[in-house]
């Protein structure tokens, strides 16, 4: 249902009301923006010289943020690849015919979906060293992201596999394929294709979660921004705080909006190609108990 159903095509009176509403709405938005700008200006935050530091190579700020962005993308890439591989294995394991595979795999998935990612990272970074392996901040963050996202991705893949039409599986068995062949040659490729938009959307979630590195001291974008602010505050006083944070925030938003758009594009393409093939995607089955994060939050 699109918006126009909720209200009739406006007549002259309604059009006048909408115009008034529009004017009031615009005024409210402008008033809010003006309020923030006036306050910021009162504190001298709008001084162009303050914002220039974001683009001035001599200050070292753009380079530092660039390097930090690379570190953010590194940990995100490592975690995404590892989580995808493990996620597929866990999804297949959860659908296994053997109880001794299914039950432990289900436990692992539900465990990591049920506890906050930060607790996983804390456990790897603070608790694990007592039992031997001393993880760097990079390893703790990467491993934490991997463990959490592999559980989320496993559920996504499982939903995808279950959504493939039953006839596909039956036909593959009828052709004499083994269980592993049915999974790898028939079910997984179709499931992956169908779940591609969700997979891409999960990259956004993962990329956002790399900012947790801030809390354990991995020098990703946000931590770098913080330490730049501390350094600049020490040298010049508290004048660049807002500028650096806005800069770092905008980088996240830009990259994530880009990935979200790609996900939308892919979704549109898969939907239209499915229509072309004359197939309608059945509703995805929902997980029995939902302690997880399926909403990109």
């Amino acid at each position: 249902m699109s918006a126009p159903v909720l209200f009739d095509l406006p007549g002259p009176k309604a059009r006048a009301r909408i115009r008034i509403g529009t004017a009031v709405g615009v005024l409210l938005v402008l008033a809010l923006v003006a309020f923030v700008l006036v306050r910021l200006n009162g504190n001298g935050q709008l001084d162009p010289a303050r914002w220039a530091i974001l683009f001035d190579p001599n200050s070292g700020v753009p380079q530092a943020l660039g390097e930090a962005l690379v570190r953010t993308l590194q940990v995100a890439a490592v975690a995404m690849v590892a989580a995808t591989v493990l996620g597929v294995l866990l999804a297949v394991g959860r659908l296994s015919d053997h109880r001794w595979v299914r039950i432990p795999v289900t436990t692992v998935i539900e465990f990591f979906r049920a506890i906050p990612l930060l607790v996983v990272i804390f456990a790897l970074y603070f608790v694990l060293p007592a039992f031997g392996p001393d993880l760097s901040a990079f390893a703790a963050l990467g491993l934490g992201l991997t463990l959490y996202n592999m559980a989320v991705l496993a559920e996504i893949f499982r939903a995808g596999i279950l959504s493939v039409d039953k006839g596909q599986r039956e036909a593959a068995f009828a052709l004499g394929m083994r269980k592993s062949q049915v999974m790898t040659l028939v079910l997984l490729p179709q499931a992956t294709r169908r779940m591609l938009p969700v997979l891409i959307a999960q990259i956004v979630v993962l990329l956002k979660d790399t900012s947790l590195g801030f809390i354990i001291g991995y020098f990703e974008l946000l931590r770098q921004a913080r330490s730049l602010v501390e350094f600049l505050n020490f040298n010049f006083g508290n004048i660049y705080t807002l500028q650096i944070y806005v800069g770092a925030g905008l980088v996240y938003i830009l990259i994530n909006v880009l990935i979200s758009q790609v996900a939308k594009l892919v979704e549109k393409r898969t939907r239209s190609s499915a229509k072309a093939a004359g197939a309608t995607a059945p509703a995805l089955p929902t997980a029995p108990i939902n302690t997880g994060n399926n909403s990109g939050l």
Partner: protein
Amino acid sequence: MQFFIDNFDILRDAFLQTLLLTVLSGVLALVLGVVLATMRVSPIPPLRGLATFYVETFRNTPLTVVFFFVIFGLPQIDTVVSFFTGAVIAVGMYTAAFVAEAVRSGINSVSPGQAEAARALGLGFGQSLREVVLPQAFRTVVPPLGSVFIAMAKNTSIAAGFSVSELSSTLPRLVNANAGDLLVVLLAVVIGYMIITVPMAYAVNRLERRVAILR
């Protein structure tokens, strides 16, 4: 066991902080989210635009960055909030974007005939939304909204990075003092979150079955 007796106060206070944070930011997110969803389907273009901008911005910003803007940014417009209030605002505003998306998709899932019938009976935009569309939308939206709020309960852990003494923050604190009981500390924190999330998941399931409508 001795560990639990010794640190019961710390753990209980931390647990209550997490619970309070979850409830308060949940209420903020629900109210703000429904308002945003309403704005997104309203006939007034600037409100639609504002809500879309809000949702797209917050959905693509890490919660940690939202925390940064609330804790370090608000003072720049002469508004100083305590760390706890800041955490409620950050988590609430961030989650509101996801609530808005969930509610909007619920509104879209109500069959157009319902809204058309409401219009035909002469109900206005506000009335048809309030009396006809939203009550039905909330029913379909229970499962996605439930997972949004469960994720939010887990997301409150990020407040640990901003001087709020909630559940996760006890982990680094207690680890140093209790080198022998590391796994117990971890277990206590995990159980603390499960006490919040598992009943929530159960309640969502129950609610979903109770309000389900057959189509």
